[in-house]
């Protein structure tokens, strides 16, 4: 493989972490002027492979060639010197610097260490414009929304004129519009001869943009194929090693009385006059573009932020939820969107994470009952097939999907009557996604009321009974799913059509 088109050639890459062999003997190569997709289940090792390429993790063994020459990547700076740029799965920016400074982080323009700020801002403006992002380059980065930060992350890699660019799930928090803008840039870069590695769980996007696709499973390379002649179903079966047919299982459940109703709630900042109700045995979808205010609605209902107006009723009774513990008492549970930040306590084991919200119930005279604690974790580890099936393992050593299952388990242990799920399948692979949908299906079958926030329209249409669309802090009335299509939701979300 020494042909001139070969931008990147990784051979026999193995990477072990204490307790986990994340990659074993992976071969991976990418050509200049092509988009190479990498797919695989959660924890398959996609991000790890890219971090090895980026110099963030030194490989345990294996060789890397860039443009035909063997190189050693000891730190990210080495990779950057070779023209490798990476857009991380998790946003990895400096909140206290300006947008422009973030775009040029590590390579600000200047002479004799003197910074040329005006030049930097002008260049950043141009790059952001090209990406279709309306962001002021002088704004402090920490003040931006997650999706805007994601765009800055992309702009940062793009602005560096890379020879090889790696995008690790760049679209997970982008709207369709922003995704489209990104794709047109990617196509342009490809035509300029840049090698692009594209990681995504959204197989539809992969089919749209990629020229080749590599499938990873359990840390091993399974296959590399041209995109022509491969279907989503084939990719899925390669990823999970078996056939998965029903991507969005929807089990019918008997719908009962409203459990949670909110009337004209506002928080004075992110949303206003939002009203809806969630009924027993129902999945109510809450969708919209990124930044529409869905997460804030959920956090406010759960007591993580305060409402400034409106009423919340549970089982018909007016309730004031001021803190998450109020919410738990009232029977509300919330699975947050930022798993790493708000979902898990990384240094604790799975068992300790699961029992956290109901510790008091497990305790007598302040002492946690050891038996009850273990039993609870054991129950959920086996019910949700959390892998590895060991409640004593530290949760941050689990893959993303398994972490997510543990977070959901944590909340089911609290026996809520309303479960709020915020992007429960974001960044989760198809296999785990189906499992999570199954779990949700079972829950509503048992009569739970579920409020599910999701940006993925196929998921919303496949799973939810009714859907509320949010735009700019305002919510539509709940719409029956039979009356909905992706186009209709998009129209409501973008405001291009009066409902």
């Amino acid at each position: 493989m020494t042909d001139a088109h070969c931008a990147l050639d990784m051979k026999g890459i193995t990477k072990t972490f204490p307790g986990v062999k994340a990659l074993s003997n992976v071969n991976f190569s990418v050509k200049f002027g092509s988009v190479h997709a990498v797919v695989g289940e959660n924890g398959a090792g996609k991000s790890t492979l890219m971090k090895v390429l980026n110099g963030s993790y030194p490989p345990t063994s294996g060789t890397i060639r860039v443009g035909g020459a063997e190189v050693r990547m000891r730190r990210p700076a080495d990779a950057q010197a070779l023209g490798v740029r990476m857009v991380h799965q998790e946003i990895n920016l400096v909140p206290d610097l300006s947008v422009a400074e973030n775009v040029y982080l590590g390579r600000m323009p200047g002479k004799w260490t003197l910074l040329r700020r005006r030049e930097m801002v002008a260049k950043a403006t141009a790059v952001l414009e090209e990406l279709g992002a309306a962001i002021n380059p002088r704004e402090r980065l920490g003040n931006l929304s997650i999706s805007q930060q994601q765009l800055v992350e992309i702009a940062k890699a793009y602005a560096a004129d890379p020879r090889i660019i790696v995008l690790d799930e760049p679209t997970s928090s982008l709207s369709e519009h922003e995704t489209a803008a990104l794709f047109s840039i990617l196509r342009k870069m490809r035509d300029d001869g840049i090698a692009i590695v594209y990681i995504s769980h959204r197989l539809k996007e992969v089919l749209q943009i990629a020229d080749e696709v590599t499938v990873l499973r359990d840390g091993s390379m399974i296959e590399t194929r041209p995109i022509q002649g491969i279907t989503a179903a084939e990719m899925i079966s390669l990823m999970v090693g078996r056939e998965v047919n029903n991507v969005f299982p929807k089990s019918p459940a008997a719908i009962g009385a409203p459990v949670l109703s909110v009337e004209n709630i506002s928080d004075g900042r992110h949303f206003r006059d939002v009203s809806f109700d969630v009924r027993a045995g129902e999945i109510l979808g809450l969708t919209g573009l990124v930044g529409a205010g869905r997460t804030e609605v959920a956090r406010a209902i759960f007591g993580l932020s305060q409402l400034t107006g409106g009423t919340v009723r549970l089982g018909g009774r007016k309730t004031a939820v001021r803190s998450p513990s109020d919410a738990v008492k009232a029977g509300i549970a919330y699975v947050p969107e930022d798993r790493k930040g708000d979902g898990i306590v990384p240094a604790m084991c799975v068992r300790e994470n699961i029992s956290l919200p109901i510790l008091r119930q497990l305790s007598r005279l302040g002492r946690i009952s050891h038996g009850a604690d273990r039993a609870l974790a054991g129950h959920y580890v086996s019910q949700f097939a959390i892998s590895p099936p060991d409640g004593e393992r530290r949760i941050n050593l689990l893959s993303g999907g398994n972490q997510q299952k543990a977070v959901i388990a944590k909340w089911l242990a609290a026996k809520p009557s309303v479960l709020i799920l915020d992007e429960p399948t974001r960044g989760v692979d198809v296999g785990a996604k189906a499992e999570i949908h199954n779990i949700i299906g079972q829950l509503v079958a048992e009569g739970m009321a579920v409020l599910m926030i999701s940006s993925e329209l196929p998921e919303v249409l496949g799973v939810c009974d009714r859907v509320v669309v949010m735009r700019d802090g305002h919510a539509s009335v709940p719409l029956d799913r039979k009356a909905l299509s992706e186009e209709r939701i998009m129209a409501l979300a973008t405001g291009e059509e009066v409902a």
Partner: protein
Amino acid sequence: MKSGDRFTRGSKAVEALSKAGLLIAILAVVLYGSIANAAFFSTGNFLNVLTSMSIVGIVVVGMTFVLVVGGLADLSVPATIACGAILSLGLQPMIGPVPSFVVAVALAGAIGLLNGMLVGYFGVNPIIATLGVGTIGLGIVQAAVGGVIVYGTNPASAELVKGRLFGIPVVALIFAAIAIVGHFVLSRSFWGRWTLATGGNYSAAEASAVPVRAVKAGAFVITGLAAGISGGLLGLTLQSARPLVGTGYEFSAITAVVVGGVSIIGGFGSVPRAIAGLVFVQLLTNVMVLEGVRTPVQGFVLGTLIVCAVGMDAALRKRGGA
């Protein structure tokens, strides 16, 4: 589905080593001490060490909570100790020894509460908050007593504290009781689990219905109470108290906790670890004094030791995959 054999338990050995490391170090000091100095290995000497470490040991128990909850350190300890010592002696003529002690500890707890409110509810950096509260507290204490020494007026209470029960000094028994309660709370109770969770990931704990603000504040209240008890006992044993009695106790306590391998970033640690750190530091100091090592050299050795302890801990933690 996914096979479990990709997952090994590589971190166990490292974990065991990090636990055993301190015990080995303690044994080494004991061994060296016994060989080097005849007076070292004797009941009398060990009782001395035990008595000497009890007062600071009580603070160590509290400080462990502060470090574990992610509160960095409580620098207001000298003020709290002074408050405990001065009030428990100064109020004796008015309300009697036991009520004075209770009032002293309660007021120390109130200082802890103030720290806790600032750190937990206002989000002030713990270093700044406790530094500020400590400065203010010490200032008020000094203004209150005008610098003069406060003497005890109740010899019976002093005898009680200085006495022995079954041959063990009473202060050491009090310390042991507090350490056991502290250990139980941190490792077995829901409050302790909350403390670990809050230190481990504040937002996740908050989103798991842990009352994070209260838990964070609680760690400072616990330290305040502990320092108050410590100060009260100090006052009673010495039968005199000055505003500056507590100087240096905050550093001694932090040193012990850190040498014990409790993470200063929070989310990890236990009372026995911290106490093992304390025992090690105390025994080492004892050996050095018995050997006639000069004070500056002692400081040098102690400082070097902390560097080694935290360095080793960081190295082990990294290999343990934290």
